[in-house]
């Protein structure tokens, strides 16, 4: 556990194919939140591997299927970033900012996306 900096249980780490940590889940979570965090980790791993379309799909799945989870605002943000990285089209970022005007308006992720309006 010390090797991976896991100081508490439960700790779940999602590493990319090169062994780099891409997401960490520490402590208990209810089923939907845990599932959303797992998907978030896989989406981040895909993103850092340059698989932007796959990452966008994974992020969007969280927003679509697990909208009430704490992971959903972060997923909405990164879905927009992944779409932008995949296409080079900044409209994806503006659309994300607009989406935050409808959902997760008080989240930190909404603040981060507000610059794209």
């Amino acid at each position: 556990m010390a090797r991976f900096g896991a100081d508490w249980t439960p700790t779940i780490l999602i590493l990319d194919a090169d062994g780099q940590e891409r997401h960490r889940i520490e402590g208990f979570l209810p089923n939907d939140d845990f599932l959303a965090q797992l998907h978030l980790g896989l989406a981040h791993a895909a993103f850092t591997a340059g698989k932007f379309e796959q990452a966008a799909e994974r992020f969007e799945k969280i927003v679509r299927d697990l909208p009430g989870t704490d992971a959903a605002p972060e997923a909405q943000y990164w879905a927009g970033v992944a779409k932008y990285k995949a296409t080079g089209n900044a409209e994806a970022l503006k659309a994300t900012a607009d989406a935050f005007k409808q959902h997760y308006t008080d989240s930190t992720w909404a603040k981060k996306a507000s610059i794209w309006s």
Partner: protein
Amino acid sequence: MTIPWRDDADRALAEAKESRKPLLLDFTAAPM
């Protein structure tokens, strides 16, 4: 669906690198 759990972290890391797939490490029941 069965999950192919491994007890050997180094072996799991090597498999992940070879298969170019992400890896999940679970410390759910590890002793403190």
